[in-house]
C-alpha cells in the first residue's frame, strides 16, 4: 500500500513537471507534505537544502531520499523509477520513431502554458517557506538572510550550494551557548 502511494506520488509529480527539475519541486512538495503527509515543512526544507548542496539532478535526489525514508531500499528504487522511467521510455520511443516532434505547434503551446502555472506554485511555496522560517529565526534576522542571500546568488553568482554549505558549517561550529537571547542577558548582567 505504502509502495503504491510512493509510486503514485512520484509518478504524478514527474509526469506533470514540465520544464525539468525545479518545476517539479512544488509538485513533490504537494504530494509529500500535503497529500500523503510523509514529512513536515521543516524536513522537506532540509531535504531541499541538502539536495541543492550536492551535485546531480535534484529530482532523483529528492525522490530517492524521500522514497528511502518512507519505504526503505525498495521505496527508494520505486520512487526513482516512478520519476524517471516513464519519460525515458517516451523519449526513446519518440526519438526512434518520429523526428520532428519538437516542431509540432500544440506541443510548444503546452510547454509554454505550463510555465506561469509552475510560477504560481513556486510563488506559493516560497511564501509558505517564508512563513515557516519565522519559527526558528526573528524577522529582522530573516530579512538580513534574505537580502544577503539574494545579493550573493543573483548578483554575485555564487552557487547556492556553497552558501548552504557555509551556513551548515556555521550552525555546527558556532558555540551552542551564545544564542541571541543569552547574549542579551549577558549584556544586561554586565551593565
Amino acid at each position: 500500500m505504502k509502495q503504491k502511494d510512493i509510486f503514485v506520488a512520484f509518478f504524478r509529480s514527474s509526469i506533470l513537471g514540465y520544464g525539468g527539475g525545479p518545476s517539479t519541486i512544488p509538485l513533490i512538495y504537494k504530494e509529500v507534505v500535503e497529500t500523503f503527509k510523509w514529512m513536515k515543512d521543516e524536513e522537506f526544507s532540509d531535504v531541499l537544502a541538502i539536495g541543492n548542496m550536492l551535485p546531480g539532478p535534484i529530482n532523483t535526489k529528492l525522490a530517492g531520499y524521500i522514497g528511502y525514508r518512507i519505504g526503505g531500499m525498495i521505496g527508494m528504487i520505486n520512487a526513482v523509477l516512478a520519476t524517471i522511467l516513464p519519460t525515458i521510455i517516451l523519449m526513446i520511443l519518440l526519438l526512434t520513431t518520429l523526428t520532428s516532434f519538437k516542431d509540432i505547434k500544440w506541443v510548444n503551446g503546452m510547454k509554454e502554458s505550463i510555465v506561469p502555472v509552475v510560477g504560481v506554485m513556486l510563488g506559493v511555496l516560497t511564501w509558505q517557506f517564508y512563513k515557516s522560517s519565522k519559527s526558528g529565526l526573528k524577522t529582522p534576522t530573516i530579512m538580513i538572510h534574505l537580502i544577503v542571500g539574494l545579493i550573493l546568488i543573483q548578483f554575485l553568482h555564487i552557487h547556492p550550494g556553497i552558501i548552504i554549505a557555509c551556513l551548515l558549517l556555521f550552525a555546527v561550529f558556532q558555540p551552542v551557548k551564545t544564542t541571541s537571547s543569552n547574549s542579551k542577558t549577558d549584556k544586561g548582567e554586565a551593565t
Partner: protein
Amino acid sequence: MIIYWKLFLSFLITNLLGYGGGPATIPLIKNDVVNRHHWLTSLDFQEAFAMGNSLPGPIATKMAGYIGYKVGGLIGSFVAVFATVIPSLFLMILMMSILYRNRHSIRVKRMTSYVKPIIVVLLGLLTYESFSESILSIGILQVIFIALCTFLLMEKLKIHPAIIVFVALAYGAINL
C-alpha cells in the same frame, strides 16, 4: 564491455561536476558526448535535447537514458541512467541520515532554521525566472490570465495541482 565503462564514467563525471541540477549538466554532457566521444553529432544532440524539453520529467535522466540507448542499447541506457542517479543519491542519503540521526541536537536544529531563508531565496528566484521567461515567450496578458486562474483554482477552490496542470496543458495545446 569497454563502451559501458566509458558510458558510466562519462555520465558519472558530468553529473558530479554539474552543480545546480539537471539543466546545469547539459552543456557538460554535450561536450563529453559530442566533442570527446563522438557518440552523437551536434545536431543529433540538439534534437534529443529539444525532444527532452518537450517531454515532462527530469531532463538529465532523459538525456542519459536516450544517449545510453543510442550507444549501447538497453544495457547502455541502464548504465548511463545509473551513473546519473545513484552516486548523488547515495551522497544525499548519507548526509540526510547523519542529520536525521542527530535531529534532536541543537546544532542540527539550528541548521534547519539557518538554511531556510536561503531556500526562500532560491524558490523566490525560480518563481521570478518562471514568470520572466514566460512573459518573453507568451506575453504578459496570457501570463497574468493563466497565473490568476491557477491561483484562484489552487488556493481558493483547493483543486489538486494535477488537474490544474492538465487544464493548463489543454489550454496551451488549443490556444497558444
